[in-house]
């Protein structure tokens, strides 16, 4: 499965990039729709074309990462669709480092304090700085 996706991913990325190129290169047809709000906002925040391409690719990437983190396949698509472009890029680039609010406060903090005390007493050997 992992090998398969390793083989498939570059192909899919290449297909996506190639697929989106003609759209970017094609001249805007004369009676195309109006200029969209996000297009103007992105332009005014001086977003480079490269950043925009990254955002297009980001959603696929995030989908893969969410699946790998155990999100059910039926939920993945809707979860990714609700992200803004900026959020999708954030998730794609540094999901591992994003803080995940969880908090098992009572338990973990108590354990920490107990271990700290026991470390100081010399009963355990968990935290190097107490030595």
């Amino acid at each position, binding site marked *: 499965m992992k090998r398969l996706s390793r083989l498939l991913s570059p192909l899919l990325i290449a297909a996506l990039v190639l697929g989106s190129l003609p759209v970017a290169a094609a001249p805007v047809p004369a009676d195309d729709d109006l200029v969209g709000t996000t297009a103007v906002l992105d332009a005014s925040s001086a977003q480079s074309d490269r950043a925009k391409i990254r955002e297009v690719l980001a959603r696929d990437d995030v989908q893969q990462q969410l699946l790998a*983190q155990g999100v059910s396949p039926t939920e993945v698509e809707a979860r990714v669709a*609700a992200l*803004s472009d*900026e*959020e999708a890029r954030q998730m794609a680039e540094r999901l591992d480092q994003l*803080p995940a609010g969880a908090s098992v406060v009572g338990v973990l903090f108590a354990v920490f304090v107990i271990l700290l005390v026991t470390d100081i007493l010399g009963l355990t050997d968990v935290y190097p700085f107490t*030595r």
Partner: protein
Amino acid sequence: MTGPFRPQERKNARIAGVLVMVAYLLLLTGCATAPQLTPATRDALPDRVRLDDVPFHGQRDYQCGPASLAMVLNAGGRDVGVDALIPQVFLPGREGSVQPEMLATVRRQGMIPFRLPGAFGALLEELAAGHPVVVMQNLALPAWPLWHYAVAIGYDLPDESLILHTGMTPGRAVDFARFDATWARSDRWAFVALPPGELPASLDADAATRAIADFEAARGSRAALPAWQALAERHPTAAMVQFALGNAHHSTGDRPGAMAAYRAATAADPELAPAWLNLGLLASREGDLQMARRALARAAALPGPWQARAREEQAALDQETDG
């Protein structure tokens, strides 16, 4: 333990280490100072606020994210429980919920998430306006983070305490200094979730515009229209807001509404090329050629990313009317 230290030296080092640790903890907790409010902010705020209509959901295991979301979504009138939210926001691999997905889940439930500027005054302002605020805290120390979401539902200025629905405890009072120390470790991350049409008290037009545009991209213009209308009412001279309102009107099939909004946008900022461009395109479809020509000419004269498109449209219109 076969280090080069003799037992006596190791004991001294241990005592020194404990002292450093105690000093560090004191620095982080005991000496934390209460955040300062500017006198203007202080005077504008009521002394005590408590939003009693925000329901409490106790968290199970690692579910403070879904529980916090359920509280603010219920307060905003959305009937959704923690169990329905868990598959939408919880990341099993991380045993928690990450910030971007907290915001995305609010959108999926049809409400708009507005990130607040990371300032204590903004947090209190929202509470005073009746909006519960989801905050992210690191309850432990930076080196051993304990990331946690909670919902602020009130404050007491004379008592210097914030009231939080947190973990398993509803309405817990935490003093400002301790709260701010834990909140600062998440870079003071916070948001309010509001139904389209309600606006945060503490945001400027630009930040609100971005938040509503992101909601519109996920949920469509019909859902976002009340939010644009409310924002345009609050900031009648913000050109970008009028422009966005025009786009939302256009997407929902209201051409006269869209034309009026684009006109308001160009009146507020005659340099806003996309507003001229959209106004021209729409006018030409409506058969108002005089207006179309005038607007496209303005758009074509403004340098920027839309100039090329404007010139093309201008040429196309001239060709059409000549031939």
